[in-house]
């Protein structure tokens, strides 16, 4: 049976503007995931472009808008998708070509929260000790794959991608705030205390809905807000 697709196409070399292209293709039984189907399509039309690498949901390359919802092509089952399967680039980002977006702004926000442990004390000979309970605080935070499904589903990020850190960046911010080895709590909170950087989150929770790793940026954002309140009193 043939599978129908409608895919966003744009090649700045030749197209004045983007358009949706229809495809109909016979998939092989081994083409279970959407990424398999896209590879099959590319073997027929080599001008169709998308990012891909690990094909198992850990590298975060193949995030796209699938039937209106952001997700990773490599972990999405084709059979579960209503046809025509409509594929668009991640919303709100400049499109480079077809399903490939320019993620500069997304990474700029990630970098802006200083995503590394800050600790000025001389490093000990062995580990900086951390109890299993303290380490557990990082679960649900460190697993982010920077696919940008969350931030590009967030209306606040669409409106202010230059000012609002966005769910992915804020999840990372809390990952370092929650790490007992990090000493920069105050600087980190100062960095976010701003009408836009943190407080543009209106708990719409699209981020939670789309995260392919089932992480919860909204909860992390709530925790940062709690830390700010605690600091203020």
């Amino acid at each position, binding site marked *: 049976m043939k599978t129908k697709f409608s895919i966003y196409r744009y090649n700045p070399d030749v197209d004045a503007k983007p358009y949706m292209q229809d495809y109909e293709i016979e998939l092989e039984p081994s083409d279970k995931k959407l990424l398999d189907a896209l590879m099959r399509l590319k073997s027929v039309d*080599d001008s169709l*472009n998308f*990012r891909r*690498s690990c094909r198992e949901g850990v590298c975060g390359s193949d995030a796209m808008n699938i039937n209106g919802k952001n997700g990773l092509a490599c972990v999405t089952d084709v059979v579960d998708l209503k046809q025509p399967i409509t594929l668009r680039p991640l919303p709100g980002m400049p499109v480079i070509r077809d399903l490939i977006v320019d993620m500069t702004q997304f990474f700029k926000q990630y970098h802006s929260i200083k995503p590394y442990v800050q600790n000025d004390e001389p490093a000990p000979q062995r*580990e900086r000790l951390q*109890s299993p309970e303290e380490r557990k605080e990082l679960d649900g935070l*460190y697993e982010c794959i*920077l696919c940008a499904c969350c931030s590009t589903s967030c209306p606040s990020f669409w409106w202010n991608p230059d000012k609002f850190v966005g769910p992915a960046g804020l999840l990372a911010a809390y990952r370092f705030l929650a790490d007992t080895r990090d000493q920069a709590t105050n600087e980190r909170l100062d960095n976010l205390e701003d009408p836009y950087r943190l407080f543009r989150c209106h708990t719409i929770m699209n981020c939670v809905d789309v995260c392919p790793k089932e992480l919860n940026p909204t909860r992390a954002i709530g925790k940062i807000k709690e830390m700010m309140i605690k600091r203020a009193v």
Partner: protein
Amino acid sequence: MAVTVRQFDAVIVGGGGAGLRAALQLSEAGLKTVVLSKVFPTRSHTVAAQGGISAALGNVQEDKWEWHMYDTVKGSDWLGDQDAIEFMTRNAIDAVIELEHFGMPFDRVDSGRIYQRPFGGHTANFGKTPVQRACAAADRTGHAMLHTLYQRNVRAKTQFFVEWMALDLIRDSEGDVVGVTALEMETGEIMVLHAKAVLFATGGSGRIFAASTNAFINTGDGLGMCARAGIPLEDMEFWQFHPTGVAGAGVLITEGVRGEGGILLNANGERFMERYAPNLKDLAPRDFVSRCMALEVLEGRGCGKEKDHVLLKLDHLGPDIIKQRLPSIREIAIKFAGVDPIKEPIPVIPTCHYQMGGIPTNYLGEVITPQGDNPEVRVNGFYAAGECACTSVHGANRLGTNSLLDLVVFGKSAGNSMIDFIRKERPTHKPLPENAADFSLARVNRIDTQTNGEDVSAVRTAMQKVVQARAGVFRTDKNLALGVTEIKEVAERAKRTQIKDKSKVFNMARVEALEMENLIEVAVATLISAEARKESRGAHAHDDYPNRDDENWMKHTLFDSASRTLSYKPVHTKPLSVEYIPPKERTF
């Protein structure tokens, strides 16, 4: 044609664990460094490593780096260079502690120290009993390590050229490496990066096989560039088949599952590894377990309708351990095998996983090639680290968790060697040869103008079929000889690949055509090297020569691409400070 030239002290090709660790060293030393990566660095294949990174920390049980060294030598089936193995295992402890200080989110034991789990071939007291040596961040150790290294490079303000593909090495008339040509994917522009020192950290080439745990980007780009630049490829017959790839999907299931207590079952429900390896059982090294699994299937004890796989059972670990220690495995099993391992076993088969061979290097990260009577002459200005390099610490078979260790130990070592070289031997750039980009421009032009050729995907599929069928878990003279003939035919077809899309911007068809030129170099090297080795050693299991032959074959293979001929060089038997570990029979 005028090509833009950009100058750096150091150019690093590859943004995975080895490239990022080296970059950190160079950036922090204040050298003008750039890291080229085909993908955003955290999308490099290091991210997919699961089970752990080995170091004799002794956090759970007594452990010594000497035992780790012994296991690695034995695991390598005595093809590993013992000076490099000593260097790696001795530096492992500091390397892992350093990652912890960088902020890597390792799991912890009650004392607050790093959690360590058992793994294949990890033993105490020189092979006596299993030991917990694999330092783990759940089953996402590679992800945790790669992100931590990237984050540390953000702190060090390392410069990245993201979504750039290196095309060719630039060597001058003396053979020194003075830069690379590279394609900026977003614009389609080809540039020359002029450097005092170049590091290849380009990863593996597992995509030469039809069934592989490797990411799509693992196309042997560094090996292809070396082959075209007259640098031989070492030990390319040695490919690791990981025992537990998800049957049909190829996705990796970590050995950490068996480390936590998972077991392999055949169709009779028998824990067959007890028969083959009474001591280490399911935790024997990977080459050994893969062969046992293949034997079970060959002898009719495979599972499923086609009797073509075995089962990995872990439900007896209980939901808590599975959710806490193996959460991603559960996710993968549900998504790619359609089973929840809390209730059902996972169907698994041996799957191509890791390239033990690669660019010949020493433990300093220097690339070394034969010249006259000397088998190991340094190529000035050229370094390699990680899976693309053959150092050789893994010899004929890598131990689980030694790959992540290899990346950080030799990434750092290569970085330090480059700093020394730049400061002491190459304070100013050596001039570029004239028309340094012509070779690359001609290759791209060939692809863009080819007519009456074949689609890249068709040639790639043909190559993968040959390698899969002829260079698998068990090898025979007849099969390998056929494989050599067949792969040479595919190599002819690969010279005439063609693409329909000729546009500039983010043209992945062109990138895939360029990757194909690298893959085919690796595939040819693999078949020719494997066909010549008339013994069984590590991952090279030869039915016609079932025994290891130290007298004739304890030596490294070197494959020269231009002549398609082989030469050999001795294994380093002299460690740096400890006693030589002499060969003995490998039983588990």
